[in-house]
């Protein structure tokens, strides 16, 4: 009896697997058909190169009551977490994102990104980047740099802040001025993040 039950389960799962694979392969071939055809015509002896679509991880599907967050930076990844709310430092001001937010693309400025899940709040400092909000309550946040706020050393922030305000004052060329200004802006944001 039990043995039979497992075989039933197994056969069902394989059927589901095959079905999925068919679906995904259709999608991929539809996207690249033109390219593959052109390639076959010009280079019949060489296999066409892969495209990033072939390596895409499955995207999270929509969950109405929760927000799915992907926070990626060049050195780390924090993906497919389900949370209640995210506050991102957009260039237009702090922006809170709740499930069911409309689809939008926004640029980020240096500031604090906080991820709220129940009473649990996680804070990251992001230097810059982009946030994509998809209509199915999925948020992609790409940051050039994202560090948990606890890992920032307040003393060195203070030190660099005084150093670069000095530099900003003494800067002679426009380029130097702009560079120092960016530094100071980031450090001000860091400072307020630490104190706030």
């Amino acid at each position, binding site marked *: 009896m039990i043995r039979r039950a497992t075989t039933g389960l197994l056969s069902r799962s394989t059927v589901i697997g095959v079905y999925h694979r068919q679906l995904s392969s259709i999608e991929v071939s539809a996207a690249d058909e*033109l390219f593959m055809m052109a390639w076959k015509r010009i280079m019949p002896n060489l296999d066409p190169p*892969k495209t990033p679509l072939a390596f895409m991880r499955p995207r999270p599907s929509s969950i109405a009551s929760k927000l799915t967050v992907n926070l990626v930076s*060049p050195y780390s990844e924090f993906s497919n977490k389900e949370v209640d709310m995210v506050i991102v430092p957009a260039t237009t001001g702090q922006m809170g994102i709740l499930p069911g937010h409309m*689809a939008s*693309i926004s640029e980020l400025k240096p500031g604090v990104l906080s991820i709220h899940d129940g009473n649990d709040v996680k804070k990251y400092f992001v230097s810059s980047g982009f946030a994509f909000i998809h209509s199915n309550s999925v948020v*992609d946040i790409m940051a050039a740099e994202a560090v948990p706020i606890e890992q920032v050393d307040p003393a060195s922030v203070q030190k660099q802040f005084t150093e670069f305000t000095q530099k900003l004052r003494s800067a002679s060329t426009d380029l130097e001025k702009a560079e120092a200004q960016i530094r100071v802006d980031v450090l001000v944001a860091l400072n307020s993040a630490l104190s706030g």
Partner: protein
Amino acid sequence: MASLGRGDSPAPLISPQPINPHRSSISPAEDQAFLGVRSISTQIVRNRMKSVRNIQKITKAMKMVAASKLRAIQTRAENSRGLWQPFTALLGDTPSVDVKKNVIVTISSDKGLCGGINSTSVKISRALHKLNSGPDKESKYVVLGEKAKAQLLRDSKKDIELCLTELQKNPLNYTQVSVIADDVLKNVEYDALRIVFNKFQSVVSFLPTTATVLSPEVVEREAESGGGKLGELDNYEIEGGETKSEVLQNLTEFQFSCVMFNAVLENACSEQGARMSAMDSSSRNAGDMLDRLTLTYNRTRQASITTELIEIISGASALEG
């Protein structure tokens, strides 16, 4: 006696194997060895054995170095894989896009001895160049790495726009790659950037891959014309910045740097993997060669001993008789 020596010269002394890599190195010394000396010199085979053993040591060491570098770089490549996925999810992937100015960014290594990864990316780049050139279209190359540069300079020198090398002098980081991306964006006019690299799959397998990054104008055009993957972009509200095109420009430039970062890391990872397997097989080949040489050496030595014994015995029996 000398004529006897020459009579049954090399043929029986050298192993009767179909592949005989050492015959050529022995033959010039034959005359010299047989001129006045009775015994056969094994000096040459011994030298050869020594050099093969040294080569084996070097390839083994290179394999170890590649293995340790691979481990460090593999984790970094895996961590960077999440970076480009949101862009592809939003902007789709458009290798078939038909635009006027194509730029092919070929990523290769600076050093050799790493199997076929560089020639693969060059081949793919050439094919893409052919695919995207026509009467009203043009394609240019941007080359990263010494090896692809050497190969592409030969036949498409006029199409190379920019060459960047010595990428891996320091461990790869995002800042460095964004500087390179900035260089490319500033110096090259483009409608579509096609990045060619080898994606790391496992130590023995890597997949040639091309990623496409469109210029902001093309993104806007494609989004407005609707249809395809980019049609969905119109559903997104674009916030921040004065105009939509400004944000799109920032977005595509950021996309380029992210895709480049991942591509450079994946390629470096494939390079080390390919080097590791290439060095592994060459150490094995050196071992095989050494075995064959040892056999030859021992046979030769045995043959010379036998010859000497025959000489002594036949001499003694001649005296007796």
